[in-house]
């Protein structure tokens, strides 16, 4: 009998535990639902926000390397000091993890109020899904948008509205080279592809790798391809292909692929590039150790290399991607992004006006000055830099008749992934240019038909 009592007792206890667990769950639920209802009610009555109640904002970015991390923190601190009713929770994350985290946050409506994103494909997706705030009225107020380089505003424009604020950097891809090595072998900065190839041949003869490349990352190799296609077919070849008024089987893509493969066959690139990782610096090591002479990279190269190897910077020179003889493209056109880190405001934000003010502090005069000191070119008009290498970047952008956004950001995620993997295959000589173009065209057609 005793045992039975014991058993029932323990059973009751267990039952109580389960119930309490369940209760816990439901308790949480009611709490969270009450908080969301509070959120919606406060969103409905923005007047209470305006009256000076404390507002808490969240901000996500990916500037994890110093001094950028503390710069952004300082910008935001200035904002909260001038606007004491706001407090901002700033969180910095690693690039790759960020992409996934942001996506999940947006889909579950738990996105931060202010967040950085790329323009192009991803931004358009957020707009179509009604996840970010239309910033046109804010940008047009007092002609604030005129502060920015036109190409930057163009890049943040979709469906005739402005959705993001260009903030971080003007990043265009150009060649960075070792001046010492060029002097040693009596080489001139090449103006055309023929001259570039001659430079490469001389370097090769002397046991120096012409181009350092880490192409596990895929977008690195894509830079060579984009420039070649741009120089051969002009900016419109790609734009038309992407907009489906043209074709990825256009002659210019085929020629670009063919030249690339010639370069690979001539061993212009370091060995094993398809297995090396750009993010962990496996291509830059080749430059630092003077095993390689040149690299085609976004201009963030300057701040990255300065952070990694200050001594090396005295040897670095830069030149724009050379012209292709007989190509339709303008030799001054650049591939890159004017803005590189565009800040958006999530639709779930309770106080977009305040959030926009916070963003403005990240690109006000003080912030700009600090960005220049950190080796960046802020995407604003009339920016003045003293460093000749930064001046080169700025010149390239200002001279450029067109700025081609990186293909992998311009295209929809699916097509962009195909572009990256097929370019890697081109470099690996496992697919011919014709095959690659055919695959791209087929996928683009398929996606266009779906929509």
């Amino acid at each position, binding site marked *: 009998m005793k045992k039975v009592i014991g058993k*029932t007792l323990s059973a009751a206890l267990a039952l109580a535990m389960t119930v309490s667990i369940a209760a816990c769950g439901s308790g949480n639920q009611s709490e969270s639902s009450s908080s969301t209802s509070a959120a919606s009610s406060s969103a409905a009555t923005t007047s209470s926000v305006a009256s000076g109640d404390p507002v808490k904002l969240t901000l996500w970015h990916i500037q994890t390397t110093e001094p950028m991390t503390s710069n952004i923190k300082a910008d935001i601190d200035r904002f909260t000091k001038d606007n004491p009713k706001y407090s901002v929770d700033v969180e910095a994350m690693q690039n790759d993890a960020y992409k996934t985290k942001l996506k999940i946050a947006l889909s579950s409506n738990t996105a931060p109020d202010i967040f950085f994103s790329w323009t192009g494909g991803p931004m358009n997706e957020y707009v*179509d899904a009604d996840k970010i705030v239309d910033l046109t009225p804010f940008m047009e107020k007092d002609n604030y948008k005129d502060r920015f380089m036109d190409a930057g505003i163009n890049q943040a424009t979709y469906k005739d509205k402005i959705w993001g604020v260009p903030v971080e950097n003007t990043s265009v891809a150009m060649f960075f080279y070792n001046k010492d090595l060029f002097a040693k072998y009596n080489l001139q900065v090449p103006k055309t592809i023929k001259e570039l190839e001659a430079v490469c041949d001389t370097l090769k003869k002397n046991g120096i790798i012409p181009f350092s490349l880490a192409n596990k990352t895929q977008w690195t190799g894509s830079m060579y391809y984009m420039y070649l296609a741009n120089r051969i077919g002009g900016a419109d070849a790609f734009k038309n292909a992407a907009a489906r008024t043209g074709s990825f089987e256009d002659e210019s893509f085929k020629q670009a692929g063919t030249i690339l493969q010639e370069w690979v066959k001539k061993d212009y690139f370091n060995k094993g590039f398809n297995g090396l990782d750009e993010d962990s610096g496996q291509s830059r090591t080749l430059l630092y150790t003077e095993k390689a002479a040149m690299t085609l990279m976004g201009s963030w190269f300057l701040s990255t290399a300065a952070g990694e190897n200050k001594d090396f910077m005295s040897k670095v020179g830069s030149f724009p991607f050379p012209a292709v003889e007989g190509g339709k493209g303008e030799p001054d056109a650049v591939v890159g992004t004017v803005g590189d880190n565009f800040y958006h405001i999530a639709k779930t934000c309770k106080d977009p006006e305040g959030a926009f003010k916070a963003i403005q502090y990240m690109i006000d005069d003080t912030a700009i000055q600090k960005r220049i000191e950190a080796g960046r070119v802020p995407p604003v008009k009339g920016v003045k830099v003293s460093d000749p290498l930064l001046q080169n970047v700025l010149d390239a952008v200002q001279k450029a008749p067109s700025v081609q956004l990186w293909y992998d950001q311009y295209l929809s995620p699916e097509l962009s992934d195909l572009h990256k993997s097929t370019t890697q295959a081109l470099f690996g000589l496992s697919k011919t240019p014709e095959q690659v173009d055919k695959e791209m065209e087929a996928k683009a057609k398929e996606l266009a038909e779906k929509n």
Partner: protein
Amino acid sequence: MQATRSLSEYRKKSTFIATTVFLLPVFFFILIFIIYPIIDSFWLSLHEWNGITSGKTFLGLENWKTLMGDKIFFKAFLNNMIIVVLSIAIQLPIAMAIAFLLDTGGKKLNFLKMIYFLPMLMSSVAIGFLFKYTYDPQFGLISAVDTMLGGEGMIDVLGDPRRAIFGVIAVVCWQFVPFYMVYFLAALSSLPVEIYEASIIDGASYGQYFWKVALPSMKGTIKSAAILSLVGSLKYFDLIYVMTQGGPDGATELMATYMYKNAFTIGKMGYGAAVASGMFIIITVISLVTLRVINGKEEA
């Protein structure tokens, strides 16, 4: 008579109730964290969803049809099978050899036990980074050793589509041999000492003891190790993703990396879910069949 029977029945009943009540919380957790996600991902696989919009479009079996004809998925599956076969063929014998050595070596080899176990203590991501540099054709260890031996160096492992998968498998083996070593070591040391002493008295050598006595009595352990290795290899992800991201040109693409790419990189959540569900079915079927085959032999 009747009284006792009803009492035993009563007891049975109360035991049943008690067990049910005790198991209920666990059942809830399994339901929420295992059963529900599986069903939900099957459900998701019938939709088109980019992971951002609030609405999902119902597609029916469209994703599954695509999956059936997807060459990349098929190639990924083949890569998984290569890993399964090589993992079992390489990891288990090496682990067994080390385990036997350590077991017969006695206490003086205890420090080796520690050293051999080290790879297991590192995170896969760290191992991935470590070997990314080891395999570097210019500065890596492999190339350096080759130059020392008089070769040209510049050995490209991860960038060469033909070699990449084997380069990665070598690292996977390096990582998991210690696990099976410990597994076998435990089995070896749980063999009765009497058997060992008896075979020594009967004049058996170490080799004979191993092949004729220890190995046969460890059949069960080896089987479960093989199953573990099989399932692990079929759903392998982290190390390969860190080292190659499935590249170059899909040479090291696995079902799991392909799933991740579709769901989170490209943003085809529905198709990613279809790949995941396909994986779930394939792994379940292969595991069940293998279990059947292995256990069937035992009964015969």
